[in-house]
């Protein structure tokens, strides 16, 4: 009896383990193994094929000496900060407006969220067309008589990132609005009653009471948006291919792809992607510390 029970437990465990093989393989081989593999090979001088000939930090020195890479980082920082600030502020303001007991809430939400269902390629191509200087906004305003009007962000190296922002915000703000709206709906109605009894104006209640209470929602949103920004790739490919002027809108993910799969300079691609990992960790570790470190004590 005891023996069959022991055997039953053993076989029971075995089917769960067999079923979990894809998960275990993905976690260990692809995620952990793949990451370690790339980090290790970023210290080699691999060119066309990966080779284990270590050259210390050579690849990283070359990376940071390359103007294309430093421009990519500057672009990503600028785009990232602008995009974070605008999505969070606009998302929150829209969520507050949506939370005013309005009619047709579902219709408004459906309209604001549909771009999120579209790919960055579709988003980028539509906005490329709207921003087309000859036929788009610039052309229309000029044809109305204002002939010196200029609105051609995508063909000017100084403004190309704003062009990307217009499209990126269009695609992603609705999603942030939904997250924020869920956060607002999660706030206890009694809080509102209390502030009303105390005669605190609505706008002040939002700033002083509601926003601090939604700290967790804000942090989660920031982490999701930030980790998406670091991956930014498709939108740039569709809208500008990194141009104008060669690299005015380059981003790190593009550098990685080009060196790994086009220029056949694997070492550079590995070093660049390791830097991307590092930047994610800079975002992620404080968050994990706040989220999971705080939970243990609370």
């Amino acid at each position, binding site marked *: 009896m005891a023996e069959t029970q022991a055997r039953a437990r053993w076989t029971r465990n075995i089917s769960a383990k067999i079923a*979990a093989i894809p998960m275990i393989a993905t976690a260990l081989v692809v*995620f952990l193994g793949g990451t370690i593999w790339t980090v290790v090979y970023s210290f080699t001088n691999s060119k066309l094929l990966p080779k284990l000939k270590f050259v210390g930090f050579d690849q990283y020195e070359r990376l940071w000496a390359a103007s294309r890479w430093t421009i990519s980082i500057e672009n990503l920082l600028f785009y990232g900060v602008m995009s974070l600030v605008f999505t969070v502020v606009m998302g929150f303001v829209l969520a507050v407006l949506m939370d*005013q007991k309005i009619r047709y809430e579902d219709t408004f939400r459906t*309209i604001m969220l549909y771009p999120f269902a579209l790919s960055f390629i*579709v988003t980028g191509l539509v906005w490329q067309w709207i921003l087309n200087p000859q036929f788009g906004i610039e052309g229309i305003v000029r044809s109305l008589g204002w002939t010196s009007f200029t609105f051609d962000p995508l063909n000017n190296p100084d403004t190309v990132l704003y062009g990307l922002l217009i499209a990126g915000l269009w695609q992603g703000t609705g999603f942030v609005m939904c997250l924020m709206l869920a956060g607002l*709906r999660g706030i206890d109605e009694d809080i509102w009653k209390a502030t009303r009894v105390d005669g605190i104006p609505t706008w002040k209640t939002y700033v002083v009471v509601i926003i601090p209470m939604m700290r967790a929602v804000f942090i989660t949103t920031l982490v999701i948006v930030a980790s998406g920004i670091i*991956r930014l790739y498709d939108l740039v490919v569709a809208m500008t291919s990194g141009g104008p002027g060669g690299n005015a809108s380059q981003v790190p993910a593009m550098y990685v792809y080009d060196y*790994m799969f086009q220029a056949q300079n694997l070492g550079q691609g590995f070093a660049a992607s390791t830097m991307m990992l590092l930047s994610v960790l800079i975002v992620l570790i404080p968050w994990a510390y706040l989220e999971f470190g705080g939970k243990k004590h609370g």
Partner: protein
Amino acid sequence: MADTSMTMSGPRGAKPRKVLSGRNIMLYGILIVVCVYYLLPLWVMVMTSLKGMPEVRLGNIFAPPVEVTFQPWVKAWKEACTGLNCDGLSRGFWNSVLITVPSVVISIIIASVNGYALINWRFKGSDIFFTILIFGSFIPYQIMLYPIVILLREMGIYGTLWGLIIVHTIFGMPILTLLFRNYFSSIPEELFKAARVDGAGFWGIYLRIMLPMSLPIFVVALILQVTGIWNDFLFGVVFTKPDLYPMTVQLNNIVNSVQGVKEYNVNMAATVLTGLVPLIVYFVSGKLFVRGIAAGAVKG
């Protein structure tokens, strides 16, 4: 936790006031302006795709077509060129279908079994693997691309549809496993225990109890995966060859090709066609879509 708290149930807040107050005019005014900004690209895209090229060149991109033509749609579907292939976007469409359907099915099966094992059949180390999986979802894909290329090449499926299907299954796993794990954790454990007493095994309980009880979450996962995989660009470029490029990649190649005269109406028709599948999924699924995307926002 299981309920993603994204149920946008009825409106709350202050007492209703007069309909035509200054506050309401402001409020709806702003919302309508915002909606115009959101709808404008869709409008422009569809209108441009219904015009002939002469009208596109002369007219205003925001104006509706004077003469409606479906020629650009036909051309985008059947004749648009990428490189030497001039058989239109239909090739990319069918590639995307062949990629999306198996990827969605396989990734959902694997992730739901994972979630089930993680809740009801924990074994030593199972939570560690899950933690790695979740952290992996934040790691930039770029860092894992080349190791996966090597793995697929060793397996002899690099550059094939099956290679890409495996990649989608791998990268869909963290979020889907989280989704199913959270959902299954809300199913009372007594049900599981009762089934165990009755002698049901791992697969028996999964198929007869867990599966029928969690159809909504399967629909959420389906929405998430169909839109996510259909919209993918990076994996399509890296892991397939030009003949097998998914629709997004082919679309980008058609529109951003430098050869020939730009046919903006055909380009926009192609763009609408590519966006059509996720848009249909979005409009049909409604609130479930919100739940699906919010799943990523819920911590495990």
